[in-house]
């Protein structure tokens, strides 16, 4: 059962993602990257 619940949640997140305009998707990607860098002090090599 927990796996079903997990599938439902992932499905809901994906549905919301696909419903977003591409511009908003870019904002979400940017926000996730900033959150990851700030929260985990991730070092990205260049």
């Amino acid at each position: 059962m927990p796996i079903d619940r997990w599938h439902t949640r992932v499905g809901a997140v994906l549905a919301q993602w696909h419903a977003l305009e591409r511009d908003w998707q870019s904002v979400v990607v940017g926000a996730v990257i900033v959150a990851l860098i700030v929260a985990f002090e991730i070092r990205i090599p260049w």
Partner: protein
Amino acid sequence: MGLTRLLPGLVVLCLGAVLARATAVGVGLNHLLVAIALGFVLTNGLGVPDRLEPGIATHKLWLGAGIVLMGASLTLETILEVGGLVLVVVVAVAGATILVVELLSRTVFDLGERLGSLLAAGAGICGVSAVVAVAGAIRAREDHIAYAAATVLLFDAITIVVYPIVGDVLDLSALVFGVWAGVSMFSTGPVVAVGFAHSEGAGQWATMTKLARNALIGVVVLVYASYYARGATGGRLSVRTLWDEFPKFILGFLVLVGIGSLGVLSPAQQAGIENAYNWLFVLAFVGLGTEIKLAELRNTGITPAVVVLLSLLLASILSLAVLTALF
């Protein structure tokens, strides 16, 4: 299922980005121009297989995300310092370009008013996005949309090569080169690419200037929709139209400018964000290169190309003269 469909193309974008970076470091070329060249060779040499297309088509998403992140490297102080003047130049050049293309299309080259309007929007505001947005508002014909989009892409390809050369020959400062590219080139991707190919500062100014120009798209769509709806039944022209056409990732960019200006990010975090947007740009430009298709560019009509070339020359020379005088 969506991810598995995107994965092959995304892997190609990532490999292209790493290869572009490695080549740039090894040979001393600009990584963004190498990325565009790789995409160009892929699409025109080998051809992009169907299964790669969905993933490669995500490149505009990565470009938008990169621009959002770039906001963290800027401060309100930097923008406000010369931002007002830049904004005046943006509005003046965009307005003049639209007027020149409209006049040439209607009076000299007899292209027809709707095709002229599509070319004017593409040249004056933001490339293919503006062509598509205005096409929807004025109910343009499909072949006219394809024609106008091909013309814009042709000049994107030309300016990607020519602008960096002119910038080097004239030894333009980062501010002048960046604002000049942002105010006179067409699509956002090539503007960001040539800006950062010149220098980090030029890239930031090019992107900010182009964002200011892109923000005018709502107004332009509104004006065109009003013009073409005259006499027709109920053109729904409203704040809603302005919002629908507004490039929303600018809001994300502005939020990060605010966060960066507050000084809440540590130097390490800022460096991480800067590296992230550099990678996102390389990724996006491999995809952008795949959109420069020689076969499609050959189909561009001579007359629309001449109209756009004349307006580009005018906007480019005038804006460069003004910017050199101002800064």
